[in-house]
Protein backbone atom coordinates (compact mmCIF):
# COMPACT_ATOMS: atom_id res chain seq x y z
CA UNK A 1 0.00 0.00 0.00
CA UNK A 2 1.31 3.46 -0.84
CA UNK A 3 1.71 5.03 2.51
CA UNK A 4 3.58 8.04 3.79
CA UNK A 5 4.02 8.48 7.50
CA UNK A 6 2.76 11.99 8.30
CA UNK A 7 3.91 11.75 11.87
CA UNK A 8 7.29 10.22 11.09
CA UNK A 9 9.10 12.09 13.84
CA UNK A 10 6.41 11.42 16.37
CA UNK A 11 5.28 7.87 15.67
CA UNK A 12 7.85 5.25 14.81
CA UNK A 13 5.35 2.39 14.51
CA UNK A 14 4.33 2.26 10.80
CA UNK A 15 1.16 0.25 11.49
CA UNK A 16 0.00 2.76 14.07
CA UNK A 17 0.78 5.66 11.77
CA UNK A 18 -1.08 3.94 8.94
CA UNK A 19 -4.08 3.26 11.17
CA UNK A 20 -4.14 6.90 12.27
CA UNK A 21 -4.07 8.07 8.65
CA UNK A 22 -6.95 5.77 7.79
CA UNK A 23 -8.78 7.03 10.83
CA UNK A 24 -8.35 10.64 9.76
CA UNK A 25 -9.41 9.81 6.20
CA UNK A 26 -12.48 8.05 7.56
CA UNK A 27 -13.48 10.99 9.79
CA UNK A 28 -12.89 13.40 6.89
CA UNK A 29 -15.07 11.34 4.57
CA UNK A 30 -17.84 11.02 7.11
CA UNK A 31 -17.68 14.70 8.03
CA UNK A 32 -17.73 15.82 4.40
CA UNK A 33 -20.69 13.59 3.63
CA UNK A 34 -22.61 14.81 6.67
CA UNK A 35 -21.63 18.44 6.14
CA UNK A 36 -22.67 18.50 2.51
CA UNK A 37 -26.17 17.29 3.30
CA UNK A 38 -28.28 20.31 2.35
CA UNK A 39 -31.06 20.06 4.87
CA UNK A 40 -29.16 19.50 8.05
CA UNK A 41 -30.94 22.30 9.88
CA UNK A 42 -34.29 21.19 8.56
CA UNK A 43 -33.45 17.63 9.51
CA UNK A 44 -32.53 18.75 13.01
CA UNK A 45 -35.76 20.71 13.30
CA UNK A 46 -37.71 17.77 11.95
CA UNK A 47 -35.90 15.49 14.30
CA UNK A 48 -36.71 17.76 17.26
CA UNK A 49 -40.32 17.98 16.11
CA UNK A 50 -40.55 14.20 15.81
CA UNK A 51 -38.99 13.80 19.19
CA UNK A 52 -41.48 16.25 20.71
CA UNK A 53 -44.40 14.47 19.09
CA UNK A 54 -43.01 11.13 20.23
CA UNK A 55 -42.72 12.37 23.76
CA UNK A 56 -46.21 13.89 23.69
CA UNK A 57 -47.74 10.67 22.35
CA UNK A 58 -45.79 8.65 24.87
CA UNK A 59 -47.02 10.87 27.69
CA UNK A 60 -50.63 10.65 26.48
CA UNK A 61 -50.35 6.88 26.20
CA UNK A 62 -48.78 6.56 29.64
CA UNK A 63 -51.38 8.88 31.18
CA UNK A 64 -54.18 6.97 29.42
CA UNK A 65 -52.86 3.62 30.64
CA UNK A 66 -52.52 4.97 34.16
CA UNK A 67 -55.97 6.52 34.14
CA UNK A 68 -57.44 3.29 32.69
CA UNK A 69 -55.73 1.24 35.35
CA UNK A 70 -56.90 3.54 38.12
CA UNK A 71 -60.45 3.58 36.74
CA UNK A 72 -60.49 -0.21 36.42
CA UNK A 73 -59.20 -0.61 39.94
CA UNK A 74 -61.76 1.85 41.28
CA UNK A 75 -64.54 0.17 39.30
CA UNK A 76 -63.62 -3.25 40.65
CA UNK A 77 -63.48 -1.90 44.18
CA UNK A 78 -66.93 -0.35 43.72
CA UNK A 79 -68.36 -3.63 42.39
CA UNK A 80 -66.82 -5.55 45.27
CA UNK A 81 -68.27 -3.04 47.75
CA UNK A 82 -71.75 -3.36 46.21
CA UNK A 83 -71.51 -7.16 46.20
CA UNK A 84 -70.40 -7.14 49.84
CA UNK A 85 -73.27 -4.84 50.78
CA UNK A 86 -75.77 -7.04 48.96
CA UNK A 87 -74.42 -10.16 50.66
CA UNK A 88 -74.58 -8.44 54.04
CA UNK A 89 -78.14 -7.35 53.38
CA UNK A 90 -79.13 -10.85 52.33
CA UNK A 91 -77.48 -12.32 55.42
CA UNK A 92 -79.26 -9.79 57.63
CA UNK A 93 -82.58 -10.50 56.00
CA UNK A 94 -82.11 -14.24 56.37
CA UNK A 95 -81.19 -13.81 60.00
CA UNK A 96 -84.25 -11.60 60.62
CA UNK A 97 -86.48 -14.09 58.90
CA UNK A 98 -85.01 -16.92 60.95
CA UNK A 99 -85.47 -14.94 64.14
CA UNK A 100 -89.02 -14.04 63.19
CA UNK A 101 -89.91 -17.60 62.37
CA UNK A 102 -88.23 -18.79 65.54
CA UNK A 103 -90.14 -16.22 67.57
CA UNK A 104 -93.41 -17.12 65.86
CA UNK A 105 -92.92 -20.80 66.48
CA UNK A 106 -92.04 -20.10 70.12
CA UNK A 107 -95.24 -18.07 70.57
CA UNK A 108 -97.30 -20.85 68.99
CA UNK A 109 -95.66 -23.41 71.18
CA UNK A 110 -96.34 -21.31 74.30
CA UNK A 111 -99.94 -20.76 73.30
CA UNK A 112 -100.42 -24.46 72.59
CA UNK A 113 -98.86 -25.31 75.93
CA UNK A 114 -101.07 -22.84 77.78
CA UNK A 115 -104.14 -24.11 75.99
CA UNK A 116 -103.24 -27.64 76.88
CA UNK A 117 -102.65 -26.69 80.50
CA UNK A 118 -105.90 -24.75 80.64
CA UNK A 119 -107.89 -27.57 79.22
CA UNK A 120 -106.18 -30.03 81.48
CA UNK A 121 -106.79 -27.85 84.53
CA UNK A 122 -110.42 -27.28 83.60
CA UNK A 123 -111.01 -30.94 83.12
CA UNK A 124 -109.23 -32.22 86.21
CA UNK A 125 -109.41 -30.76 89.67
CA UNK A 126 -106.94 -32.35 91.93
CA UNK A 127 -108.41 -34.28 94.83
CA UNK A 128 -106.49 -32.15 97.27
CA UNK A 129 -108.28 -29.03 95.98
CA UNK A 130 -111.82 -30.52 96.33
CA UNK A 131 -112.61 -29.10 99.88
CA UNK A 132 -111.45 -25.67 98.79
CA UNK A 133 -113.64 -25.79 95.75
CA UNK A 134 -116.63 -26.71 97.88
CA UNK A 135 -115.92 -23.84 100.33
CA UNK A 136 -115.85 -21.40 97.45
CA UNK A 137 -119.23 -22.68 96.26
CA UNK A 138 -120.72 -22.26 99.74
CA UNK A 139 -119.38 -18.70 100.10
CA UNK A 140 -120.83 -17.86 96.78
CA UNK A 141 -124.27 -19.23 97.83
CA UNK A 142 -124.16 -17.12 100.96
Amino acid at each position, binding site marked *: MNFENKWAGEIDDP*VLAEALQHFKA*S*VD*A*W*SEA*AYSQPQTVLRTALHSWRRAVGWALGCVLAAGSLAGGVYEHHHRQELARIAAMQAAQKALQARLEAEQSAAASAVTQDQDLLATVDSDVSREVPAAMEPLAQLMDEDGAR
Partner: protein
Amino acid sequence: MRRDGASTKVMAAGTAVKPMTAGAGEEIAAQEFARIVESHRPQIFRFLLASLRDVDLAETLTQECFLKAHRSWKHFRGESSAMTWLMRIAINLQKDHWRNRRMQFWRHTRSNAVDADDAGEWLPSGERTVEQQLLAREQVAQVWKAVEGLSERQRTVFLLRYVEERELSEIAQATGLSEGTVKAHLSRALGRVRAELRGTR
Protein backbone atom coordinates in the same frame (compact mmCIF):
# COMPACT_ATOMS: atom_id res chain seq x y z
CA MET B 1 0.42 32.79 14.11
CA ARG B 2 1.15 36.37 13.06
CA ARG B 3 0.00 39.60 14.57
CA ASP B 4 0.25 43.03 12.95
CA GLY B 5 -0.10 45.47 15.79
CA ALA B 6 -1.89 45.23 19.06
CA SER B 7 -5.44 45.31 17.71
CA THR B 8 -5.07 43.09 14.65
CA LYS B 9 -7.16 39.93 14.73
CA VAL B 10 -5.51 36.79 13.51
CA MET B 11 -8.08 34.73 11.65
CA ALA B 12 -6.12 31.63 10.84
CA ALA B 13 -2.57 30.54 10.38
CA GLY B 14 -1.00 32.94 7.93
CA THR B 15 -3.97 35.31 7.53
CA ALA B 16 -4.42 38.51 9.44
CA VAL B 17 -7.25 41.00 9.36
CA LYS B 18 -6.94 44.73 9.82
CA PRO B 19 -8.52 46.05 13.00
CA MET B 20 -12.08 47.29 12.92
CA THR B 21 -12.28 51.01 13.43
CA ALA B 22 -15.30 52.62 14.97
CA GLY B 23 -16.25 54.12 11.60
CA ALA B 24 -15.95 50.83 9.73
CA GLY B 25 -19.23 49.86 11.24
CA GLU B 26 -20.88 46.64 11.96
CA GLU B 27 -21.03 45.63 8.33
CA ILE B 28 -17.30 45.04 8.16
CA ALA B 29 -17.42 43.09 11.40
CA ALA B 30 -20.25 40.99 9.99
CA GLN B 31 -18.31 40.33 6.78
CA GLU B 32 -15.23 39.45 8.74
CA PHE B 33 -17.18 37.06 10.90
CA ALA B 34 -18.89 35.55 7.85
CA ARG B 35 -15.45 34.75 6.44
CA ILE B 36 -14.50 33.11 9.73
CA VAL B 37 -17.64 30.99 9.65
CA GLU B 38 -17.10 29.99 6.04
CA SER B 39 -13.49 28.98 6.52
CA HIS B 40 -13.68 27.27 9.91
CA ARG B 41 -17.15 25.77 10.12
CA PRO B 42 -16.24 22.46 8.44
CA GLN B 43 -13.32 21.87 10.83
CA ILE B 44 -15.38 22.67 13.92
CA PHE B 45 -18.14 20.39 12.67
CA ARG B 46 -15.64 17.61 11.95
CA PHE B 47 -14.08 17.89 15.40
CA LEU B 48 -17.48 17.80 17.11
CA LEU B 49 -18.63 14.94 14.89
CA ALA B 50 -15.55 12.90 15.78
CA SER B 51 -15.98 13.72 19.47
CA LEU B 52 -19.69 12.97 19.67
CA ARG B 53 -20.27 10.59 16.72
CA ASP B 54 -23.71 12.19 16.36
CA VAL B 55 -24.35 14.17 13.20
CA ASP B 56 -27.37 16.10 14.49
CA LEU B 57 -25.71 16.95 17.77
CA ALA B 58 -22.48 17.96 16.03
CA GLU B 59 -24.50 20.26 13.78
CA THR B 60 -26.37 21.77 16.73
CA LEU B 61 -23.20 22.36 18.74
CA THR B 62 -21.46 23.82 15.68
CA GLN B 63 -24.29 26.32 15.35
CA GLU B 64 -24.08 27.09 19.05
CA CYS B 65 -20.34 27.50 18.78
CA PHE B 66 -20.63 30.13 16.06
CA LEU B 67 -23.48 31.82 17.85
CA LYS B 68 -21.32 32.17 20.95
CA ALA B 69 -18.37 33.27 18.85
CA HIS B 70 -20.53 35.92 17.17
CA ARG B 71 -21.68 37.24 20.52
CA SER B 72 -18.15 37.54 21.86
CA TRP B 73 -16.48 38.46 18.57
CA LYS B 74 -16.01 42.03 19.80
CA HIS B 75 -14.01 40.75 22.74
CA PHE B 76 -11.74 38.50 20.67
CA ARG B 77 -8.34 40.14 20.98
CA GLY B 78 -6.46 37.90 18.61
CA GLU B 79 -4.17 36.43 21.21
CA SER B 80 -4.55 33.10 19.47
CA SER B 81 -5.70 32.18 15.98
CA ALA B 82 -9.43 32.34 15.33
CA MET B 83 -9.40 28.61 14.77
CA THR B 84 -7.90 27.97 18.21
CA TRP B 85 -10.37 30.37 19.78
CA LEU B 86 -13.30 28.66 18.04
CA MET B 87 -11.96 25.25 18.98
CA ARG B 88 -11.84 26.33 22.60
CA ILE B 89 -15.51 27.36 22.46
CA ALA B 90 -16.37 24.04 20.81
CA ILE B 91 -14.48 22.08 23.49
CA ASN B 92 -16.33 23.95 26.24
CA LEU B 93 -19.68 23.30 24.55
CA GLN B 94 -18.81 19.65 24.26
CA LYS B 95 -17.82 19.55 27.96
CA ASP B 96 -21.14 21.17 28.89
CA HIS B 97 -22.93 18.60 26.79
CA TRP B 98 -21.25 15.65 28.52
CA ARG B 99 -21.85 17.22 31.92
CA ASN B 100 -25.55 17.68 31.14
CA ARG B 101 -25.79 14.11 29.95
CA ARG B 102 -24.23 12.85 33.13
CA MET B 103 -26.66 14.95 35.16
CA GLN B 104 -29.63 13.81 33.13
CA PHE B 105 -28.74 10.17 32.98
CA TRP B 106 -31.96 9.08 31.33
CA ARG B 107 -30.86 10.85 28.15
CA HIS B 108 -28.40 8.02 27.67
CA THR B 109 -31.28 5.95 26.45
CA ARG B 110 -32.10 8.47 23.75
CA SER B 111 -28.85 9.03 21.93
CA ASN B 112 -28.28 9.19 18.18
CA ALA B 113 -24.58 8.47 18.48
CA VAL B 114 -23.28 6.13 15.79
CA ASP B 115 -21.56 2.90 16.87
CA ALA B 116 -17.79 2.69 16.52
CA ASP B 117 -18.24 -0.05 13.92
CA ASP B 118 -20.62 2.07 11.85
CA ALA B 119 -18.37 5.11 12.11
CA GLY B 120 -15.54 2.98 10.74
CA GLU B 121 -17.54 2.28 7.59
CA TRP B 122 -16.67 5.70 6.23
CA LEU B 123 -13.55 5.44 4.16
CA PRO B 124 -12.60 6.98 0.83
CA SER B 125 -12.26 4.17 -1.70
CA GLY B 126 -9.14 5.63 -3.38
CA GLU B 127 -7.18 3.26 -5.58
CA ARG B 128 -6.96 0.42 -3.12
CA THR B 129 -7.82 -3.20 -3.52
CA VAL B 130 -10.78 -4.72 -1.72
CA GLU B 131 -8.43 -6.46 0.67
CA GLN B 132 -6.64 -3.21 1.51
CA GLN B 133 -9.96 -1.50 2.02
CA LEU B 134 -11.09 -4.21 4.40
CA LEU B 135 -7.86 -3.95 6.34
CA ALA B 136 -8.16 -0.17 6.51
CA ARG B 137 -11.76 -0.45 7.68
CA GLU B 138 -10.74 -2.87 10.39
CA GLN B 139 -7.98 -0.53 11.53
CA VAL B 140 -10.37 2.41 11.62
CA ALA B 141 -12.86 0.41 13.68
CA GLN B 142 -10.08 -0.50 16.11
CA VAL B 143 -9.00 3.12 16.46
CA TRP B 144 -12.61 4.13 17.13
CA LYS B 145 -12.84 1.42 19.75
CA ALA B 146 -9.70 2.72 21.45
CA VAL B 147 -10.95 6.32 21.22
CA GLU B 148 -14.18 5.23 22.85
CA GLY B 149 -12.22 4.04 25.86
CA LEU B 150 -10.26 7.27 26.29
CA SER B 151 -11.08 9.88 28.89
CA GLU B 152 -12.81 13.02 27.65
CA ARG B 153 -9.59 15.03 27.82
CA GLN B 154 -7.46 12.35 26.16
CA ARG B 155 -10.01 12.00 23.40
CA THR B 156 -10.10 15.74 22.77
CA VAL B 157 -6.32 15.99 22.63
CA PHE B 158 -6.06 12.89 20.43
CA LEU B 159 -8.65 14.14 17.95
CA LEU B 160 -7.14 17.62 17.80
CA ARG B 161 -3.75 16.13 17.03
CA TYR B 162 -4.53 13.25 14.67
CA VAL B 163 -7.74 14.38 13.00
CA GLU B 164 -7.45 18.15 13.07
CA GLU B 165 -3.65 17.98 12.82
CA ARG B 166 -3.15 20.87 15.24
CA GLU B 167 0.22 21.74 16.69
CA LEU B 168 0.87 20.91 20.34
CA SER B 169 0.95 24.60 21.25
CA GLU B 170 -2.44 25.15 19.59
CA ILE B 171 -3.89 22.14 21.40
CA ALA B 172 -2.53 23.51 24.67
CA GLN B 173 -4.16 26.88 23.99
CA ALA B 174 -7.47 25.36 22.94
CA THR B 175 -7.72 23.03 25.89
CA GLY B 176 -6.14 25.32 28.48
CA LEU B 177 -3.55 22.66 29.33
CA SER B 178 0.20 22.92 29.35
CA GLU B 179 2.12 21.41 26.45
CA GLY B 180 3.60 18.84 28.80
CA THR B 181 0.15 17.69 29.85
CA VAL B 182 -0.96 17.57 26.22
CA LYS B 183 2.03 15.35 25.41
CA ALA B 184 1.23 13.08 28.34
CA HIS B 185 -2.39 12.74 27.24
CA LEU B 186 -1.31 12.03 23.67
CA SER B 187 1.15 9.43 24.80
CA ARG B 188 -1.51 7.59 26.85
CA ALA B 189 -4.01 7.82 24.01
CA LEU B 190 -1.50 6.45 21.51
CA GLY B 191 -0.62 3.65 23.88
CA ARG B 192 -4.25 2.68 24.02
CA VAL B 193 -4.64 2.77 20.24
CA ARG B 194 -1.45 0.74 19.82
CA ALA B 195 -2.67 -1.87 22.29
CA GLU B 196 -5.99 -2.11 20.48
CA LEU B 197 -4.25 -2.58 17.15
CA ARG B 198 -1.91 -5.21 18.58
CA GLY B 199 -4.87 -7.13 19.79
CA THR B 200 -6.06 -7.55 16.24
CA ARG B 201 -2.73 -8.18 14.55
